[in-house]
């Protein structure tokens, strides 16, 4: 897959998603999309623009406001041989469909002893920084990782948005793709034509020797910014984009930690029982003797995302917070976890 570097050009994250959808719908007539206002209107974030005209209304299905219903239907369609790609407008709305996602979709393959096949993709977006407040700003990936059965992907770049979505659609398992509303406007180099990546591979985005900063989704962009700041201060930070949160690519993480011996994990989701906690627990279990200091985290505060700019900023990660936390870790005397 994508072994030969294809020609690429700079396009937006949204367009990259759209390209992946078109690419896969062209390739496989069983792929279809479904969700609220995705057809006639082209999607609240424009990711499905043009699909209705191109693929017709049996492959581009506008639904009522019935997330539990249509995710359940996607499961049935998948079991009947289709490859549904559901758009859930905000990851916050997953909570009205949680039984279908976690009790049905996630469990179907295992609890049938492999008899059910569920090649189903749920595409959604999360995240804050836009003043959309407590019910439209969450990052809920930990919920979908805690209950086993879904692959979980969180692309941070337009190229990954295309390549990972295409991989998710081709994957025979249910895959939860978490996009980020801050990234929809991002632009980047994206291969033209067919572009499919592997699920389950982290990426060393920036190589360094002093500290491993592990992140994903929009926070990855902040981590890179923090690394640039740290570089000016003489700190050589390695930055890893997890990209897939389940299954985790521990090999890449371990390779990095065995080099830097210091780990900082940064994500936007809440700290408690988050991906950072999970990864920290796993790293120290496996590599305790490799660590020169505690694994630190920069996470969203453990409060509902507040509306006011001052509080939202205070509650969410930033490049400055990541850099500050890295300095603490490197100085060897980290204070207690913030918040």
């Amino acid at each position, binding site marked *: 897959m994508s072994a030969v570097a294809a020609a690429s050009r700079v396009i937006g994250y949204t367009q990259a998603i759209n390209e992946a959808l078109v690419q896969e719908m062209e390739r496989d007539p069983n792929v279809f999309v479904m969700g609220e206002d995705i057809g006639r209107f082209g999607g609240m974030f424009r990711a499905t623009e043009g699909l209705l005209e191109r693929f017709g209304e*049996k492959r581009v299905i506008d639904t009522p406001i019935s997330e539990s219903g249509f995710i359940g239907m996607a499961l049935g369609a998948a079991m009947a041989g289709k490859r549904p790609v559901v758009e859930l407008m905000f990851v916050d709305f997953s909570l009205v469909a949680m039984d279908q996602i976690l009790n049905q979709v996630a469990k179907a393959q295992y609890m049938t002893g492999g008899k059910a096949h569920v090649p189903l993709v749920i595409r959604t977006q999360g995240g804050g920084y836009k003043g959309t407040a407590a019910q439209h700003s969450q990052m809920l990936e930990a919920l979908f990782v805690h209950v086993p059965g879904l*692959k979980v992907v969180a692309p941070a770049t337009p190229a990954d948005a295309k390549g990972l979505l295409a991989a998710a659609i081709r994957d025979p398992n249910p895959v939860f793709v978490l996009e980020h509303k801050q990234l929809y406007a991002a632009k980047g180099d994206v291969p033209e034509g067919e572009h499919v990546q592997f699920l389950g591979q982290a990426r060393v985005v920036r190589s360094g020797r002093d500290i491993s900063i592990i992140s994903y989704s929009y926070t990855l962009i902040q981590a890179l910014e923090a690394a640039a700041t740290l570089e000016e201060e003489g700190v050589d930070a390695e930055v890893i984009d997890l990209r897939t949160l389940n299954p985790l690519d521990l090999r890449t993480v371990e390779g990095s930690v065995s080099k830097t011996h210091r780990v900082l994990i940064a994500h936007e989701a809440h700290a408690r029982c988050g991906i950072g906690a999970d990864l920290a627990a796993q790293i120290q279990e496996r590599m305790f003797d490799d660590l020169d200091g505690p694994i630190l985290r920069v996470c969203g505060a453990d409060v509902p995302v507040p509306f006011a700019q001052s509080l939202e900023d205070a509650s969410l990660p930033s490049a400055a917070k990541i850099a500050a936390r890295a300095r603490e870790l490197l100085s060897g005397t980290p204070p207690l976890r913030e918040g």
Partner: protein
Amino acid sequence: MAAATKPAADTEFLLGLYRQMVRMSALEVALTKLSRDGQLRGSLHLATGQEAVPAGACAALRKDDYLTVTYRGHGYVLAKGVDLEEVVAEILGRATGLNTGKGGKMHLTDPSHGLLGANGIVAGGIGTAVGAAMASWMDGADRVAMTVFGDGTLNQGHAHECLNMAGLFRLPVIFLCENNLYAEMTHLDKSAKVTDLCKRMETYGIPAVRVDGNDPLAVFRVVETAVAGARNGDGPTFVEAMTYRTCGHYQNDPGTSYRTLDEIKEWEAKAPIPRLQASLYQQGAAADELEKIHREENAAVDKAVKAAIAAPEPPVSVLLEDMFV
């Protein structure tokens, strides 16, 4: 299964329905014993007295039609043609089970017979069936889907959403509601102001038919019509089968603390197996023949139970398998 083309009242056909009910009943007797003996883990939701609904309804389906059922759905699983031995082995948690012992009784699933799953969550499998029907509709295929649930299930939001979409898109799906008057221990009267379930379908634009759920032939006929309509592009139908579980909600419920003995007796008197037996005799069926069915089905269940008990539990080595393909 291919019975849909048979003249419906034909004795041979009735004997087939009878056999299905007897098989289901034999299985229930065996499972009850296993549960009492501590050989069957977890909860056991029987459907004693409701045997006519699965027998009649599944006779109207093709093997490749889709089906989702509930924790109380073993009768449908058998009537859909799923292998008895595999079912019993699954219920006993054996490696030889339909789902390698991983699922158990609440999650019996066999896509090769269109069975997309039993379910432990009230209403949880409705979306699956409607979605399978949608897949068929997308392909312009004539496969239909059926989903089975109880009277109490209509109060669960997921059911509502799916019914609305099935009505909206006119999908080839049959909503088969077993109205046994109770949801666990709660009478229909206590769970909704409007207890006329067919009337509740008007909100979805889904035609609804009420049928005597203790008469397998009647059930067969209405489901057959609904299936024909669905195959024909006429969209969904709701079938309300009026029935009663003469047993408790599950193995630890005698079923008597919230229902009168009179009510139970009244329904026992209408139990579908003796009732069809009587009409078979009237139609001239030989006692021999019926006894033979009982003997054969008991023996088959017996054999399946013995085989399951002799079979190994799944080895620990498979614990992490089947998560991802």
